[in-house]
């Protein structure tokens, strides 16, 4: 009798372990984060102190915001590679004297309007013309980078509005304001995806466009909303990055494009299904940021860091492919 009980327990444990393993493959961000923390505890324990963790949180804000936005089109089987362009244009725009010295609402609102407009433009070409999302958004991205050169006159610089600097670098007690903004947006996005008609319909559209259309789901509307919200998130990420560096620069945000896609895939989101939800995407963004800090702390140079990041992005793409089977 006790013997069978142990056997039963063993089997239960086995089933549990198998379930955990399946989860780990489905949402690699969490085990990756755990692994990074273990490495940090051994190699760079100071990375795990509270002040430093808050710094990592603040550093991860632009990537996390972009990735949360990026996850929306990706759930709907689309993608937005123009997020970097939105960030670049936002950056040089906010560094214009008219914005730096002008009213604060302009610096806050214009990036959001810009992001929404670009998202709408992408969505019309993708959802109505049924053009390739990769090509369309890549083209738009090139267009935006050109626009940013035009705005900055090729010689960026200047200052930004103090409010923008405060949002990006300010603290509430010890907690970074940017972190609060990120958490609020993450929670809103999570609730939206889990509970709203939009979230459910978007997953259905991503899972099968044909079945969603035949099932009476307004497939195009979902894709438009997803792209517009993605653009807005990129706009907010642009505000944060600009406030953080405090000036205009060339091609800011270019590295966030692929990194955001990687964070989404690490976070367990594939076309249609979002195994990890917004939490997974958040974890993916934190893991990538933590990795960069860890490597810097361990004296790994920029070239090697780029190689590792590239490997992770390529690996994430392979993972997404494997999961789709």
């Amino acid at each position, binding site marked *: 009798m006790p013997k069978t009980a142990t056997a039963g327990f063993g089997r239960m444990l086995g089933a549990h372990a198998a379930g955990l393993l399946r989860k780990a493959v489905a949402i690699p961000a969490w085990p990756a984060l755990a692994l990074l923390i273990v490495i940090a505890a051994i190699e760079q324990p100071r990375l795990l102190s509270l002040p430093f963790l808050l710094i990592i949180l603040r550093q991860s804000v632009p990537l996390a915001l972009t990735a949360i936005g990026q996850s929306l089109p990706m759930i709907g089987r689309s993608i937005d590679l123009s997020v970097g362009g939105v960030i670049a244009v936002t950056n040089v725009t906010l560094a214009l004297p008219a914005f730096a010295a002008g009213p604060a609402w302009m610096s806050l609102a214009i990036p959001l309007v810009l992001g929404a407009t670009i998202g709408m433009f992408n969505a019309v070409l993708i959802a109505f013309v049924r053009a390739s999302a990769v090509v369309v958004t890549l083209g738009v991205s090139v267009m935006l980078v050109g626009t940013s050169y035009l705005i900055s006159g090729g010689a960026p610089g200047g200052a930004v509005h103090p409010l923008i600097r405060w949002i990006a670098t300010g603290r509430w007690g010890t907690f970074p304001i940017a972190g609060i903004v990120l958490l609020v947006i993450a929670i809103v996005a999570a609730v939206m995806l889990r509970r709203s008609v939009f979230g459910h319909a978007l997953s*259905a559209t991503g899972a*099968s466009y044909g*079945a969603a*259309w*035949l099932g009476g789901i307004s497939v195009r509307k979902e894709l438009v909303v997803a792209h517009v919200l993605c653009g807005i998130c990129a706009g907010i990420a642009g505000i944060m990055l600009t406030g953080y560096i405090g000036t205009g620069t060339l091609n800011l945000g270019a590295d966030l494009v692929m990194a955001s896609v990687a964070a989404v895939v690490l976070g367990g989101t594939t076309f249609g299904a979002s195994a990890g939800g917004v939490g997974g995407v958040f974890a993916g963004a934190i893991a990538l940021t933590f990795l960069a800090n860890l490597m810097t702390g361990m004296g790994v140079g920029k070239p090697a860091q780029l190689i590792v990041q590239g490997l992770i992005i390529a690996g994430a793409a392979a993972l997404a492919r494997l999961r789709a089977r």
Partner: protein
Amino acid sequence: MLLEVTDITMSFGPVQALRGVSLALRPGSVHAVLGENGAGKSTLMKIISGVFPPSSGEIRVGGAPVSWHQAEQARAAGVSTIFQEFILLPNLSVAENLFLGREPRNRLGLIDRPRMREESRRILARVGLDLNPDVLTGSLRVAEQQMVEIAKGVMRDARIFVFDEPTAALGDREAAQLFALIRQLRTEGKGVLYISHRLPELFDLCDEVTVLKDGQYAGHFLMKDTGPEELVTTMVGRRLDQLYPPRPAPATGAPLLELRAVKVEGLAGPVNLSVGRNEIVGLAGLEGQGQIEITRAIYEGHTLEAGEILFDGKAFDHSGPTGGIAAGIGLIPEDRKADGLFLPLSVARNISAGLLPGLGLGRSAPQPKAEIEAQVRRLRIRLRDTGQTIGELSGGNQQKALLARWLVRGVRLLICEEPTRGVDIGAKSEIYAILRELADRGVPVLVTSRELPELIGLCDRIVVVRDGATVAEIPGAEATEERIMAAAIRGGQR
């Protein structure tokens, strides 16, 4: 013996797909493998075609034991498999596919195209396919692609041909062409293993049959010594005449749906059709005579060139599925995987998706857990829990989940295109019972099906469609396959 499979066992993790299955294939015979979905037929075929090795057991080809780990090894040993999903490359020509990996070379070491073309023509002629070897394989009809696949086997001197439900995607004429070819393979002394759900064609074609049930050997019969009843009983432990629910007395009263002299764009028309409030009405006809266009015209609301559609006595004009759904019509599409299911999503999400149409995007999404659970119990959908991914369920359970989607919404009329395609016999009878129960409760059902016995057993009335027009209407109780076919092919007179 051409092929002997002895005591095969196959486990996938904790799941035992096959337990002690044996089978022997004689040269010059067509050997059917019969069983419900999940009985292990496909697993057995994959082992025989070398896709994966068995956990235990022995395979002998021509008396010599073999051990395969790749499909290529089985192919080299003379086993040619025609899978449901083809492995021909659609972007290559027929000749290139036939010679893939063994292209003839000329003196310069380049591919000898004239020779390839000529030999392709010869091989294609041998399988009775009159085809230009230069056409792209992807542009061929499914039946022709199958023939090319067979030609490839013939060319490589395969001795054993394995067919995995080859007629699932074929019309009657194409199926007849395939059967002729299989018979020819038999006279040439090849051995053919043939998987199919369709009992009638097995009697038409096969010499013997091995029945599997729950991954185990359940029986072996010579076709001439057995009948459908015995096979079904062996396969499911249930008698055939219990497959369909009893038909109630003919219904009266005003119809819920009426099509009056409707002409749909691209079809000759006219279509006259009515569906009463307690009826199951079937649309019969040869492949692609407009059955699907008619159901879609009702559901999606195509522009009509003539005539009118009345729903509940009122003109019914809409564009897009949302219109049909808003009126209370649900549709279960013929291609369940592509047009019905959200494969990566959970069963619960697949069912509650039926509640989304018509709701604003900002609204909270309805997730009626209790009601979904109730439908799962009522329809006896077999699953771990409603959070399970729907792609993991069997065809029958997926189909029931689509039914649940519309039941949760509470539709007034259900359109079922091919209600039991790829569904095993046990689930078939359950689906028939559900459709009948719906009709009894006042939710009529419009059914299309390629399988005439299904329409005859299930429907109150069968409307025959030919060339986009309704040409006959036969009460279900009086319908026979002969009557339906006579109407479906009658003349060519316009």
